[in-house]
């Protein structure tokens, strides 16, 4: 599109829109830094002056929050590991090997993303309890991976398919073994795709709620999202501590996004429109 005559005017417009749009996020930070006495009332403070860390110490003083943060970290790391472990060979085979039924498999992976979590949570609740893996990290990691794995393959398959076959063949001719081809040619080329998948899987695992709510009753394994929800119910009006908790939960999200931003945006659009 043609460059605008006053590009800074566009910048100003976009900045205003972003500011209005992100008001809730600012408000979360603002409330979390405001003294508890000044949070409730008809005229809220738009700037946290004087700022206080009181809400954060109140929130982090609770062992339950630390435990839940740890649980979420374990769960989302497990989800990343399991997704890559299953996803990489699966997408490599689907991209590279002419197999009977590979078209059906890709279709099945697209369909696998359709069911609402609650529909899957219901039978998993019964089955995991019978198998004795309800209330375990494993049960939650496995449930979350049903969300990430189909998505991962849909993102990774085109990336792997994009590696020129000629390059692989040339390397083979030059005496590079099949393993060498994978390690030296294919893997480096798929790093952006892997990073995107790892980052997004982590975010999905970190933010997951439905399975955490239904498949775990034990505080020793429940993710932090479930804890936040029960906080909202219990301490409905201590918004300072609630917003401090919410902010703490957001920290890893923002970090992961800041580091992997480029990869994630690319992977996200690739996975959605391209399929």
């Amino acid at each position, binding site marked *: 599109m043609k460059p605008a005559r006053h590009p800074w005017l566009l910048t100003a417009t976009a900045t205003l829109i972003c500011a209005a749009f992100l008001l809730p996020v600012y408000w979360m930070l603002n409330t979390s830094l405001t003294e508890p006495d000044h949070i409730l009332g008809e005229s809220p403070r738009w700037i946290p002056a004087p700022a206080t860390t009181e809400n954060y110490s109140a929130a982090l003083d609770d062992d339950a929050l630390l435990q839940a943060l740890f649980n979420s970290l374990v769960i989302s790391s497990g989800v990343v590991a399991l997704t890559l472990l299953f996803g990489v*060979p699966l997408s490599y085979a689907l991209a590279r090997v002419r197999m009977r039924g590979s078209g059906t498999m890709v279709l099945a992976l697209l369909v696998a993303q359709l069911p609402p979590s609650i529909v899957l949570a219901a039978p998993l609740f019964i089955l995991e309890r019978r198998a004795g893996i309800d209330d375990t990290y494993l049960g939650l990691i*496995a449930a979350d991976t049903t969300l990430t794995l189909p998505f991962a393959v849909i993102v990774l398959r085109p990336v792997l398919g994009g590696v020129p076959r000629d390059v692989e063949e040339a390397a083979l001719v030059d005496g590079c073994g099949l393993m060498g081809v994978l390690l030296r040619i294919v893997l480096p080329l798929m790093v952006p795709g892997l990073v995107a998948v790892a980052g997004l899987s982590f975010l999905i695992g970190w933010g997951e709620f439905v399975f955490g709510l*239904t498949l775990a009753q034990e505080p020793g394994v429940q993710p932090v999202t479930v804890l936040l929800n029960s906080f909202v119910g219990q301490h409905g009006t201590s918004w300072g501590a609630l917003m401090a908790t919410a902010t703490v939960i957001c920290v890893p999200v923002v970090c992961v996004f800041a580091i992997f931003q480029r990869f994630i945006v690319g992977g996200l659009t690739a996975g959605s429109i391209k399929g």
Partner: protein
Amino acid sequence: MRPPRTTAVRPPRTTAPRRTFALRPSRSPSARLRRTGYLFTLPGLAFLALFLAYPLLYNAWTSVHDVGLSGLLGGATRFNGLANYRATVSDPDFWHAARLSAVFTAGSLLFQFTIGFALALLFARPFPLNGLLRSLLLVAWLLPPVVSGTLFRWMLDGESGAYNALLRAIGLDALSRDWLIDPGTSLAGVVFANVWVGVPFNMLLLLVGLHTIDPELHEAAAIDGAGAWQRLRWITLPLMRPVSVTVLLLGLVYTFKVFDLIFVMTGGGPVDATSVLSLYVYEVFFRFFRFGEGAAAGLLLLVVPLLAGAGYVRRLRREEGAV
């Protein structure tokens, strides 16, 4: 696999670089390679069969059996045909939830798509800080839904909420209210929050679509004297149609799924004013432990996403020639 369909007018490409999916058959299709291929797919597929396909089938089994809490402990269950389905479709609460789902989904789609489109048009133009501002918007989409839900519960709070304070500041005191407690506005409140979550994603996908429109079309039209509005009406909008339909179908699937955001904001209340279908299934299954009926309702809940998914896959096939 279908060969690419050749049409007289090809739809604009929806993605920037097209990669070839239809790989040439390997020159020496050795059986060994194929066997390794199957071996590679095995762990992943076995996992999905065990944790996704089997539970869904088991759900279908449950839906035609009389299963209550005793069934969970391995007690006797009885085949009862379509009784669970009959019970579900004759439950007025189910239809109430279906209506709410329809309103929630339609409202969310309408606003998140329109606002997302407008923002995409803005961000399609080059200006300083474009990338940074765009990324900032995306943060809203990446926050865990439970966090966004908590956030909006606070923003929409009656007495101390920031939005009511804003309304009072500009003299619209009459409008300020306890948005999520008032049964008349609670649904609008959750739609509002869901639109906030959905706008960045819509914008991002539509932006990808806008970038595939050949700038020469706009230049040529401008030379011919077409104004900005005319170019939008006669170039951008028609060329964006295929991408728009795809984005709306995806939005339909995602919006219909929403559970956590509403659960955290209102828990379905006040008095079921926001109890959409996903919350209805949760209630029946996890609160009343009527597993058979919950499973039946869950399967009925699959209808809309499956239809949307079928439309989505059809479009993909048409555009890519193969899935």
